[in-house]
């Protein structure tokens, strides 16, 4: 898996969620993603960024473009927040600890091709997603 470029964006405030959307949109467009695929990966990024801000108490996103053998975008959202005690439960639609609909994690998983969630209570959470072109 050849990583051609990476970029790190702080994900701390609401304004950062908008910034994340712009960065991901730009990269997806540059890689030649179709409009639907761009929209899917940007929407997934928006959900994950909001989780990082609200539940992770802020963190960062690393955006990498993958080139070869397949072309894609990899996003890693990392925070040093409280962590997720029950990952299976957190991924279930409708589960929420906040005021949302509980579609953030499960929903964003459906919008990408690869999804990996690692979390340790008291240490933080790392979500890695890939959307292939």
């Amino acid at each position: 898996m050849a990583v051609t470029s990476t970029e790190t964006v702080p994900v701390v405030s609401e304004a950062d969620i908008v910034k994340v959307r712009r960065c991901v949109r730009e990269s997806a467009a540059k890689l030649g993603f179709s409009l639907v695929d761009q929209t899917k990966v940007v929407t997934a990024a928006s959900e994950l960024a909001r989780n990082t801000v609200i539940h992770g108490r802020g963190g960062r996103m690393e955006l990498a473009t993958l080139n070869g053998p397949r072309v894609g975008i990899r996003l890693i959202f990392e925070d040093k927040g409280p962590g997720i005690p029950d990952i299976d439960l957190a991924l279930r639609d409708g589960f929420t600890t906040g005021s949302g609909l509980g579609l953030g994690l499960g929903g964003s998983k459906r919008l990408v091709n690869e999804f990996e969630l690692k979390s340790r209570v008291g240490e933080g959470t790392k979500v890695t997603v890939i959307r292939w072109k």
Partner: protein
Amino acid sequence: MEKIPILRMGEFLLVTIQVDMHDRLAMTLQDDLTNRISQTGAKGVLIDISSLEIVDSFIGRMLGNIASTSRVLDAETVVVGMQPAVAITLVELGMSLDGVRTALNVDAGMELLRRSVSGHEESEYGSYFH
């Protein structure tokens, strides 16, 4: 503070969302619209989202909340102009915008609002005489 303008046209309120909305702006719009409906006694709200490049669960929830709140205040809400890519993504995300009326464009949306308002009056008229 940044705000999304709300226009009044007869008994309807019109909103065109033209910016990439951050969460607080969405909440502000929800509050502003509720206040305007109550102040003006508007019978319908038309929200044009044709410029929105994504609708995530937060914005989707806001649209649902606006529709429910305005219904309680006796106003209909129609969301118009959703881009096809946004619609596909929203459904895959798991949101179907239950309870939110939609139309393809502003014309169709206005027609829907006019019809729902006049239909409402006719039925009241009907029940008065029967």
